[in-house]
């Protein structure tokens, strides 16, 4: 039992033979925490408030009625708890074009993934739709076809100046995703009228006609093919199986677009036949 002399750090030294450094051997000190404790808890016996009992009864009643109303007869096939007729309410009949645009705006969320919310497109991903001559053309033939069957990607010119190349990222067909003729007409109408675009709305009948015209085709359009399709009407050049039959109008357009010397060459050939 060695005594420890007092020092400035430890003015009240205690015997330090056992225990932790500085641990006291004074029983009362060691058990101070326990000594100052209050007795262990007991329960009081206040009676239950009748208001609480009434509230509980009310809650049980609500629970029972909710359970019987919304259980779908406990069937495993009933997923709707109750007929839930929550429609987008409008007060009074709405102008059909406005309704169509609103529907189209909602459907456009699908397109916005690539073409951006503001129709500006994304470089390398999707061409812009805002201010695009493809969209603002007099007819929506090309656009509807692209929406239905997709686009393989490749170089194309927008507004005759901007070159857009979407190599390596095709636009998938959206016929199934967007839905029926009304839906496709709605989203194309929205695209043609939003962000300052000057196109005209599109009717579901147009979509129906074009759908019938491309029935059986599943391949997306290539740049060459889509450029051959006129923007107005719902027609198209005949199937790409080799025949190059063009309507008179289409032939005229084609000839006008040719450079002068090539036109002269063709006329010369026709002349010699």
């Amino acid at each position, binding site marked *: 039992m060695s005594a420890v002399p007092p020092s400035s750090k430890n003015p009240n030294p205690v015997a330090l033979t056992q225990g932790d450094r*500085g641990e006291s051997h004074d029983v009362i000190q060691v058990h101070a925490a326990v000594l100052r404790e209050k007795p262990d*808890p007991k329960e009081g016996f206040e009676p*239950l408030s009748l208001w609480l009992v009434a509230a509980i009864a009310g809650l049980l009643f609500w629970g029972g009625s909710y359970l019987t109303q919304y259980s779908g007869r406990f069937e495993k096939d009933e997923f709707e708890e109750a007929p839930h007729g929550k429609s987008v309410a409008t007060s009074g009949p709405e102008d059909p074009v406005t309704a169509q645009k609103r529907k189209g705006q909602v459907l456009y*969320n699908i397109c916005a993934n690539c073409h951006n919310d503001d129709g500006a497109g994304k470089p390398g991903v999707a061409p812009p739709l805002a201010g695009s001559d493809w969209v603002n053309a007099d007819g929506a033939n090309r656009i509807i076809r692209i929406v239905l069957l997709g686009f393989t990607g490749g170089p194309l010119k927008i507004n005759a100046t901007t070159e857009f190349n979407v190599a390596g990222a095709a636009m998938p067909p959206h016929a199934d995703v967007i839905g029926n003729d009304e839906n496709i007409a709605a989203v194309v109408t929205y695209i043609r009228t939003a962000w300052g675009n000057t196109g005209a709305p599109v009717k579901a009948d147009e979509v129906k006609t074009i759908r019938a015209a491309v029935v059986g085709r599943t391949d997306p359009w290539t740049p060459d093919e889509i450029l051959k399709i006129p923007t107005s009407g719902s027609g198209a050049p005949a199937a790409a199986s080799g025949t190059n039959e063009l309507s008179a109008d289409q032939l005229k357009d084609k000839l006008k677009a040719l450079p002068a010397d090539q036109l002269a060459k063709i006329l010369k050939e026709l002349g010699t036949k």
Partner: protein
Amino acid sequence: MSASVKSPAVRALLPGDVSPETSAPTLTADIDASCRAPVLFFFVSGLAWLLIGTIFALISAYKMHSPDFLGNCEWLTFGRVRPAHLTTVVYGFAMETSIAVLIWLMCRLCRTPLIAPGIITIANFFWNLGLTVGVVGILAGDSTGIEWLEMPKYSTPILFISYALIAVWAIITFRLRAEKHLYVSQWYLLAAVLWFPWLYGTAQVMLLLSPVRGVVQAGVNWWFAHNVLGLWFTPVGLAAIYYFIPKVIGRPIHSYYLSVLGFWTLALFYNWNGFHHLVGGPLPAWMITVSIVASIMMLIPVTAVAINHHFTMVGHFGKMRYSPTLRFIVFGAMSYTVASVQGSLSALRSVSEVTHFTHHTIAHAHVGMYAFFTMVMFGSMYYILPRVTQREWPSARLISLHFWGSALGIILYVVPLSYGGILQGQALNDASIPFLKVVALTLPYLKIRTFAGVILALGHVAFAVNIVWMLVRVFGPYRKPLQMIISGSEQPAAVGK
């Protein structure tokens, strides 16, 4: 060694139902001393997991608004570090501290010194081992993909050994109890000990060992996950509140009848709540409806418990100034009411239509697990640690820093994020708002959440420093208890000079 219940000396002091006041604090001190190693092991390892979990939390929170942070590290990708956070704080900190509190409360209330401390120590080792294996597994990519049960299959048996040891110990202690009267806390603790293995076992079997088919998995998943909250953490938290509030202020609990009502309605209704996590989901309507009804019925036990706690505390709120324990416990008790009401309302279909899938759910989870459960655990630790170590808290300032860090941090976390979640839900329900715009509107609230997380972390660090300081005894010989320093009062004679 410490006196055991069987020793004649102790028996002479405890005829029948006599409380320890007449037996002198010797028995209480013996109980505390016998609990020392096991409780300390669980508290200290729990604290370590809290610090690790806080780091994972900060990483996850930051990544949510700045996704490129540590973006190249596969081990820390958000989808792994977020479940690592949940696992470490729930199965690390929350589970281990609740086991420690359970052990200590059981011994105190049963008036039995802890038997076979070696069992608990071994259990602690296995728990930490299993958890480490599990968390590393999650970060390595072996997560099960099941929320609240992400630890891979290979870590489960280790945890099971640990839990089996604890459960067996608890039941034996309960059987050997010296105190015949069962206080309300003991009902909750016994219930928790029996419920948890049933939940965990069912989940392990039906989700991992022999998975059920299809959406039944989702059902079992959320039956399990919600019941971990409601049938383990809530009972342990309530047991602690029921003990510490009347203990610290020296008044009885307001009403035994409310305690009974609260306990049995919780037991009956809480376990049916699980499917409120699946409102609107691909399950038959009746299952969802049943859970919604049960969730609203939970207002009964929550009200009973709130009335009980409030009327016990009324007139004594001033004591929170002197007792850190009381501060944390009362904060936790009030948060329990808030969390439960928020939860019950969120279960209603009309509310869920807005809040489901949003950050509101996460905010609610933190009201329950942090503002309620963690704060109650902190309060319990402030009371228990001095008694099992027979040392006092070194620094009142660190306690203050801890309390204010945690309290302000959690309020700053849950209030803005709940509000942001509601805005997010409303925007999501408007199909004309593009999805990326919805994401953009949540960003400010996510950033506030990260900032709140930093404040919480400061509180945790203060707590850790205080605990380590207390254990290592760097500061020197015995000092005056903090209670006296804070209140400025002096107890005569009881404290040696």
